[in-house]
């Protein structure tokens, strides 16, 4: 049977380049230019897949991106891509394709039992059935259902291909290169503006490539296409993109295109990305998306061998493939007659053209009759027979009132159906365009949009070729500004679009309770499912969609939306325009995840911020953690140490001798100017006027709602210069907030703000030996206890390198933060490290930093606070200036609710068992056993094992906590008895602060 369906003299495939590919492991022959679908059809094979829910045998119904049935997996291993449309996948030597959703094989599939069970699988079946017993859904039902239904399998290995991302600007973007799009691009391009023309197909021309009837300027349509494309190629201001789908229309004319670059090649050039996303900002967009032929809804309409009439024409005219031997044409409009005529000419036997209409009488109908094609008006298909292939249909008469009489069954191996054409509105709707219902055409058409967009050609219901070309040219010229010559073409032969078209379920005899007449092929939704949903009370089209899943498959309801709408409209006896359409969402066609991810994966996923001592930490075996975008050393384990052992050692060494820590990630902002102190006064809750030059102060920032936003030590470098530090995560937010108030509220202030986070590297040197280690290094600067007490700041040099030296501590020990230019910090670090060796200087990481500060009861904003804590709640009420006339948060902090005695307040928590470390986030309640629902008295915010105390410690936020010292609370656990805890002061270690002032 091989190749018997391929006709010589037809098609655009390259017969000089035969191609062999594998389908389900067996070689299939085709030609360059074939799709998997056309090559299989040339072999007489329609069966290409199994349906989603019922496992029905399925073949292609279309010849393009609207294909709901013929979904295949392509490629092997990590390069396998599931759910591609066989009607679009171009063949090349060595291509490997498989059918999907079948077990064990395409012809023998055990899942077909679902079809036998179909009377018991109505709309909403899963919602209704798998509700009980509780817990069965996750473990039993879902895995079973997932195995029995669904699409292809995603590969599990990482995608080895590269994907590109490209930003582009143009004056006119034309989406779709059929007759309207080509005309628009040429009209716009000739004016000299920048034009991008894209089309999802490998060749420009759209429907014209399948049109052997129309003549433009005296030449065949396909020849006109070649001529026009050649003309476009000569224009340097026009960019032509084939295999490139416009799939998303974003605000302000930002349109995303997906260009497929290598999948059609047997071997891709090295370095070429597989796909590329184009983000195109267009001044104007012309949508020339075309229209899609609608399937007809009748019993058995999904049998392989039942295709859209236009698809069969495409297989004949583009691929030289006849889809069968003996066909019945079922139509409700005129277009199918042209297909019947051409197919008959090519050797197909047309049993009859059954027309739903009573009096089809246009020129093309007359031409068909004159050529001896039998036309049966007022006829419907009651039912199609067959399993792997349609074998016969019952043609039945329809009376004027819609009653269907007894018909006769005729044998055939092909049914060509046409319900008329649905304009493709997807991109127009994504552009937030309105829709208007056209009664005459029975479809929705694009209305006004807020974007600079216009539709042209059949996507706005203009069907006659001469009108389409004119419409496209006008749209293109107007989009380009309207100045220039309008290209004019003369269509010397064409079919006039007739009246007609049909939406909904074809009339049938009998109620059809058991009939499977498919509306949405891909999701296996039938006409009776849609009717049932309406009967069960789902009246909104959006609800019907979700309940039945019609239109929710990867084809986005391209072929099903209008039929579903018509069925709902008829069942509700409500006009279609009152029912409305469901929302069209991007993408127009599925886009590979890899294309979306583009370069943003692996190391490129996010920027990585490295602290200046990162290399040193790596060399010293640090274990790292991510803190925002920063990579920070968490701890430095020695051989055999786990985290607890390493942290315990690091903490003990800091308290005993000294530790060194890379604190460069601290946010740093310089506040400079004559009004710097006044700015600080207004911004922080603290007072700054009296802070002397060379001194530091702990500062707290609130929002105007009175809640803590950020904190950090601030040093006054000069009268008009403050060196502000923020939390690592809060740096950008604090600067933004500072700029906000400075620019919008306090325009009277003469102040500049500069982010200096990256400029200054910070070495924290902490511990009783810190001064001894540092003193010899600072080029004669006096850092004695007398000359430089705690919270003092000095400028100087360290080995000749400029330095801002802060005597500050986040450990509770004598300590310094050595600020040096970050590019030179590593030199300084190495010097400090060497000088510290005789003293036992130890590197410590963020984990020890957390433990050391918790031992001292220092809060971490974002850990103890959650955006609802006031400074008073966290024990910092002392910081609030009483004398400033205003500052951010002042008004709110005076509100009674923010001073209520039962607010959550920061306290220390000790467990009875000193070895038990509480979980952060644990709730604290009043009794060991509480009757649910019980409310909590508070929760644990920080919890560690404290090496200094040799026991567990925790910090908590507890209602009225500060007045409940010594009280007992309980931390409930899921799997064990509640833990008894006692509330204590949160300063666990050295409460008098002798060490920090040492």
């Amino acid at each position, binding site marked *: 049977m091989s190749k018997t369906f391929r006709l010589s003299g037809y098609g655009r495939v390259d017969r000089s380049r035969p191609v062999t590919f594998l389908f389900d492991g067996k070689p299939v022959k085709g030609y360059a230019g074939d799709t998997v679908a056309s090559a299989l059809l040339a072999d007489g094979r329609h069966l290409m897949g199994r349906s989603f829910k019922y496992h029905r045998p399925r073949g292609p119904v279309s010849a393009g991106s609207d294909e709901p049935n013929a979904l295949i997996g392509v490629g092997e291993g990590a390069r396998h891509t599931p759910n591609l449309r066989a009607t679009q996948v171009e063949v090349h030597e060595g291509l490997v394709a498989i059918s999907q959703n079948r077990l064990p094989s395409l012809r023998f599939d055990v899942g077909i039992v679902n079809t036998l069970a179909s009377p018991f699988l109505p709309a909403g079946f899963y919602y209704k059935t798998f509700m009980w017993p509780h817990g069965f859904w996750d473990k039993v039902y879902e895995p079973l259902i997932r195995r029995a239904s669904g699409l292809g399998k995603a590969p599990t290995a990482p995608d080895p291909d590269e994907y590109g991302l490209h930003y582009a600007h143009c004056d006119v973007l034309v989406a779709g290169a059929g007759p309207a799009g080509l005309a628009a691009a040429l009209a716009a391009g000739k004016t000299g503006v920048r034009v991008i023309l894209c089309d999802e197909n490998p060749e420009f021309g759209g429907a014209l490539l399948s049109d052997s009837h129309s003549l433009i300027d005296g030449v065949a349509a396909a020849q006109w296409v070649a001529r026009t494309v050649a003309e476009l190629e000569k224009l340097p201001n026009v960019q032509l993109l084939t295999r490139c789908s416009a799939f998303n229309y974003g605000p*302000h004319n930002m349109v995303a295109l997906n260009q497929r670059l290598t999948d059609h090649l047997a071997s891709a050039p090295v370095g070429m990305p597989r796909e590329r996303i184009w983000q195109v900002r267009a001044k104007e967009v012309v949508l020339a998306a075309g229209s899609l032929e609608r399937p007809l809804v009748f019993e058995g309409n999904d049998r392989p061998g039942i295709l859209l009439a236009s698809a069969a024409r495409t297989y004949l005219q583009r691929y030289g493939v006849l889809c069968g031997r003996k066909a019945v044409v079922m139509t409700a409009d005129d277009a199918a007659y042209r297909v019947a005529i051409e197919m008959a000419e090519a050797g197909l036997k047309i049993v009859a053209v059954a027309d739903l209409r009573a009096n089809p009488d246009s020129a093309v109908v007359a031409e068909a009759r004159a050529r001896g094609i039998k036309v049966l008006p007022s006829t419907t298909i009651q039912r199609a027979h067959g399993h792997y292939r349609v074998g016969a249909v019952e043609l039945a008469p329809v009376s004027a009132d819609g009653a269907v009489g007894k018909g006769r069954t005729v044998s055939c191996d092909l049914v060509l159906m046409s319900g008329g054409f649905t304009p493709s509105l997807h991109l127009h709707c994504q552009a937030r365009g309105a829709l208007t219902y056209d009664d005459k055409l029975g479809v929705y058409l694009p209305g006004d949009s*807020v974007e600079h967009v216009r539709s042209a050609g059949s996507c706005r219901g203009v069907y006659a070729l001469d009108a389409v070309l004119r419409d496209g040219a006008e749209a293109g010229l107007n989009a380009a500004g309207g100045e220039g010559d309008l290209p004019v073409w003369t269509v010397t032969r064409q079919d006039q679009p007739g009246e007609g078209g049909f939406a909904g379920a074809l009339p049938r005899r009998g109620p059809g309770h058991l009939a499977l007449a498919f509306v949405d092929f891909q999701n296996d939704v039938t006409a009776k499912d849609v009717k049932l949903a309406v009967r069960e009370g789902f009246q909104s089209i959006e609800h019907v969609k979700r309940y039945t899943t019609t239109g929710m498959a990867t084809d986005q309801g391209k072929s099903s939306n209008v039929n579903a709408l018509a069925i709902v409209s008829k069942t509700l006896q409500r006009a279609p325009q009152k029912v409305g359409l469901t929302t069209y969402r991007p993408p127009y066609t599925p886009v590979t995840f890899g294309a979306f991810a583009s370069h943003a994966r692996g190391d490129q996923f996010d920027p990585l911020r490295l602290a200046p001592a990162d290399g040193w930490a790596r060399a010293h075996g640090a274990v790292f953690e991510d803190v925002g975008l920063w990579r920070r050393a968490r701890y430095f384990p020695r051989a055999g140490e786990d985290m607890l052992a390493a942290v315990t050692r690091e903490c003990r060494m800091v308290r005993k001798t000294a530790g060194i820590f890379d604190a460069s990630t601290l946010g740093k902002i310089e506040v400079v100017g004559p009004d710097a102190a006044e700015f600080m006064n207004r911004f922080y809750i603290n007072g700054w006027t009296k802070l002397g030059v060379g001194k530091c102060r702990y500062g707290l920032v609130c929002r105007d709602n009175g809640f803590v936003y950020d904190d950090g030590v601030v040093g006054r470098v000069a009268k008009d210069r403050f060196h502000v530090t923020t939390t690592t995560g809060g740096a950008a937010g604090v600067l933004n907030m500072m700029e*906000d108030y400075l620019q919008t509220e306090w325009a009277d202030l003469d102040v500049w703000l500069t982010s200096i986070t990256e400029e200054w590297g910070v070495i924290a040197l902490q511990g009783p030996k810190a001064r001894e280690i540092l003193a010899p290094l600072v080029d004669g600067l006096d850092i004695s206890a007398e000359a430089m007490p705690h919270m003092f700041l000095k400028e100087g040099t360290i080995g000749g390198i400029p330095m801002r030296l802060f005597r500050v501590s986040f450990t509770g020990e004598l300590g310094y933060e050595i600020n040096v230019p970050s590019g030179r910090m590593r030199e300084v670090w190495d010097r400090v490290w060497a000088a510290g060796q005789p003293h036992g200087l130890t590197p410590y990481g963020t984990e020890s930093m957390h433990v050391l500060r918790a031992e001292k009861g220092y809060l971490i904003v974002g850990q103890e606070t959650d955006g609802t804590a006031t400074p008073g709640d966290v024990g910092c009420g002392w910081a609030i200036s009483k004398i400033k006339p205003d500052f951010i948060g002042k*008004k*709110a902090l005076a*509100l009674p609710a923010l001073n209520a005695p039962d607010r959550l307040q920061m306290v220390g928590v000790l467990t009875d068992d000193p070895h038990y470390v509480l979980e952060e986030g644990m709730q604290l309640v009043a009794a060991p056993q509480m009757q649910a629902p019980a409310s909590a008295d508070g929760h644990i915010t920080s919890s560690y094992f404290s090496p200094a105390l040799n026991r567990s410690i925790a910090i908590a936020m507890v209602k009225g906590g500060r007045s409940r010292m010594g009280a007992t609370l309980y931390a409930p656990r899921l799997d064990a008895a509640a833990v008894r805890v006692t509330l204590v002061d949160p300063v666990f270690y050295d409460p008098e602060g002798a060490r920090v002032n040492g």
Partner: protein
Amino acid sequence: MLLIECPYCGPRAEIEFSYGGEAHIDRPGPEVSEEEWASFLYLRENTKGVLAERWRHAHGCGRFFNALRDTRTDEFKAFYEMGEKRPDAEKKEGEGA
């Protein structure tokens, strides 16, 4: 992605900007009543239609500015500097970005 016209740098993509909420909200002093303060903190117009709003060219010049945007369509009617009076939206109808 919105196309936003920074008064200082010109039209740039939305990713360069951070949003600053409704514009022309005067921050009162601490002497106002609690009700007035709560209204300053929490009450916004939630306009369906032309909204005056703040943007900051965070990944550009860093400046705050105001814009008039139709919240139904995302169409910008005007961009203007901090401290300027809100322009008349109707005059610019149909001109936005």
